């Protein structure tokens, strides 16, 4: 495919869409599937047929629009009306109101902070394109950045743009993406790999799943651009097997991109070739750790190994390997298209761009949000999230999943960036954000995460294998109100020992939920210590 053909396809798809006066976009992501969007879509298609509107009104299955708590979500264009909790019976009503006032009891007002506070970069096309049709993605600009790099830029220039943008890894640790790309690019080996980490395992996190379901081409394009920049011709997307819909859509997207020549040999007539293979995880959280993930791609047990050597020197089958997570790759195309300065303008001094969060727990508006870095936790929880339900009080917000920590009310005005969250004893993590109210016990929250880490420990190194179960057993004594002061001392010693001596990131960060709750909610632990009864 060349530039002309590429632009022609995109234009044709835009023309086709423009031929319809009305578009009814129905979210078909997992959240809405769970609340029955498929029935709504079927009903809408039948209704359009029976009204004879099939030439003027198009029903589109689209990606996630964010409000996963009130699905199925339906939007009507060009009226720009958003409906929530739509039942199949509501479809007729919605169609009756097209071009007129909206259906009041279903309408979701878009002038609320939930929409106004967000800034969509990664999710720009989510909810607009049909993730199963590559043409609709191309109409929205997909693969334009790949065209640009392969025809107008040299690989070092691409690395430089990414470096200048200030993009940092969205998988948790926040390692500068450009630096990583540069390291792999400099390796002289002839075989290199690009790996996309889609093994999102944090309970309470569904950002990457949503991106893969809503705009899979964005991820593939980011990987191809990375392949061009670092000199790799093969890529792997590693996705959890539990994400059936994301897998289906990625498979389809890879197939369609190959058919169109956007992946494969001599992309856009250049000398650059790049193919992508999908690999399924199989239910092991530790495979989010990069060395474990590579072991899994190689068909082995997902045991991490000590670093160095880092994957950028010796990764898959010993070859230099670039590993980034889904959201990181999804940021690449817009940076190439709009320039590094544009991206660096969003966010804070050290944390550039936007971040996608999965907001859940005891909060009024649950869902997927994308906000500029530097926004305060208060804005996220109280404004975008609409505060705490049932008149309860905010207690803490948990970020970073099982490797992160709980941030109490006193720090609600902290800006969300890598450094600030770390200073508070939590981490940015991949973007799970779970809100807790005053009815939640922090000791049992700590126990919950510790039990998770224990279940997910691979068992290779002793501190993680035995340390996590020891901590779980100690925390059980606390939740049963029969702990002693000695238990508390031992718990703290274990926190230190496990974090200092474990082999991989999972073990090293496993005690974080306990450390952070001890830091802010120590009195809750103390209240769990049984009073010493004097023997008579």
């Amino acid at each position, binding site marked *: 495919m060349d530039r002309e053909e590429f632009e022609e396809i995109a234009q044709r798809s835009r023309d086709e869409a423009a031929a319809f006066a009305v578009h009814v976009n129905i979210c078909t992501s997992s959240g809405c599937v769970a609340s029955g969007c498929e029935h709504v879509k079927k009903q809408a298609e039948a209704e359009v047929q029976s009204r004879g509107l099939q030439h003027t009104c198009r029903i589109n299955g689209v990606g996630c629009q964010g409000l996963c708590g009130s699905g199925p979500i339906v939007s009507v264009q060009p009226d720009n009306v958003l409906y929530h909790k739509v039942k199949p019976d509501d479809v007729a009503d919605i169609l009756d109101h097209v071009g007129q006032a909206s259906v009041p009891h279903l309408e979701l007002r878009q002038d609320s902070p939930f929409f106004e506070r967000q800034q969509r970069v990664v999710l720009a096309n989510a909810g607009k394109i049909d993730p199963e049709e590559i043409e609709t993605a191309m109409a929205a600009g997909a693969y334009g950045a790949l065209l640009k790099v392969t025809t107008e830029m040299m690989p070092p220039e691409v690395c430089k743009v990414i470096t200048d943008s200030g993009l940092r890894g969205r998988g948790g640790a926040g390692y500068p993406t450009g630096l990583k790309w540069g390291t792999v690019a400099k390796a002289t080996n002839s075989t290199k790999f690009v790996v996309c980490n889609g093994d999102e395992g944090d309970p309470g996190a569904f950002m990457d799943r949503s991106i893969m379901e809503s705009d899979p081409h964005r991820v593939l394009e980011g990987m191809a651009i990375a392949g061009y920049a670092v000199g790799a011709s093969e890529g792997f997307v590693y996705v959890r097997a539990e994400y059936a819909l994301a897998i289906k859509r990625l498979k389809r997207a890879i197939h369609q991109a190959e058919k169109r020549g956007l992946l494969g040999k001599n992309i856009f007539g250049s000398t650059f070739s790049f193919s992508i293979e999908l690999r399924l995880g199989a239910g092991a959280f530790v495979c989010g750790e990069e060395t474990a993930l590579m072991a899994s791609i190689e068909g082995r047990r997902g045991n991490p190994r000590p670093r160095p050597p880092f994957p950028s020197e010796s990764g898959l089958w010993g070859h230099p390997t670039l590993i980034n997570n889904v959201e990181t790759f999804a940021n690449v195309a817009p940076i190439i298209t709009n320039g590094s300065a544009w991206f660096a303008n969003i966010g804070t001094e050290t944390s550039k761009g936007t971040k996608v969060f999965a907001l859940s727990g005891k909060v009024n508006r649950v869902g997927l949000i994308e906000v500029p870095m530097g926004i305060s936790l208060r804005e996220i929880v109280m404004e975008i999230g609409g505060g705490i339900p049932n008149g309860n009080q905010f207690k803490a917000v948990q970020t970073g999943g099982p490797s992160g920590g709980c941030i109490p009310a006193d720090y609600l005005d902290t800006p969300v960036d890598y450094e600030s969250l770390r200073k508070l004893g939590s981490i940015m993590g991949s973007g799970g954000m779970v809100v807790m109210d005053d009815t939640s016990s922090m000791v049992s929250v700590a126990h919950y995460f510790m039990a998770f880490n*224990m279940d997910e420990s691979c*068992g290779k190194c002793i501190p993680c294998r035995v340390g996590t179960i020891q901590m779980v057993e100690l925390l059980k004594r606390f939740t049963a109100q029969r702990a002693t002061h000695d238990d508390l001392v031992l718990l703290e010693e274990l926190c230190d020992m496990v974090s200092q001596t474990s082999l991989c990131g999972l073990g090293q960060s496993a005690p974080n939920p306990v450390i952070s709750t001890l830091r802010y909610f120590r009195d809750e632990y103390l209240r769990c210590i049984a009073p010493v009864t004097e023997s008579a």
Partner: protein
Amino acid sequence: MSSVKTLKINGKDVSARTDDTILQVIREHDIFLPTLCHIEGLSAVGACRLCLVEINGSSKLRSACVTQVEEGMEVVTDNERLQKYRRMILEMLFVEGNHVCAVCVANGYCELQWLAERLGVDHTRLIYLHPDKHVDASHYRYAIDHNRCILCARCVRVCGEIEGAHTWDVAGRGINAHVVTDLNTSWDSSPTCTECGKCVQVCPTGALFKKSRAIGEMAKDNHFLPYLKTMREVNKNDR
């Protein structure tokens, strides 16, 4: 590039080959550093975490068995903090299995027991897990008592890397991890085991043992170990 590096271990200047690990240099200079998963001649995995050392005053610890020497490196192998961690690791090994030295076939010949004595582990505050583990004594010559296994995976490596049989591997994960022969079938029915007994000889505890031997006969017969390293290199070059 120079083929020799100089570094400091516990304040003392030492020299090393470029591709040496810190542990190799330490062993060469007769400095005590506990290890359990490591055994000369098999691949290093850095799993037991006993050989953690401090490097260049950084608080981030590195396992000596998998870390290559670097010019000017300053290594500390022993201090209060490291001792505390090492003792805790040993305590963890004792509480996760069922280790009763007095009735163990390896009593007096057990690396875990030696290290516990040497590091002064005589009691623990950790919680005993008392797991329900079984013994496979189906094989006519050898037996495995999972109660005493510390999952160092030496048997797995010697069987795969030296004998080439790969009868052993680790199954399950986390606290439920355990070593298995083939598809977790009984040892006597193994279609792959060559009965070479190398696994028994590298086992640091009484988990793998030869049947009908009295205590006192338990000294490990490691005559093949000095050759292991060369054999492994030969194997590697063959590949």
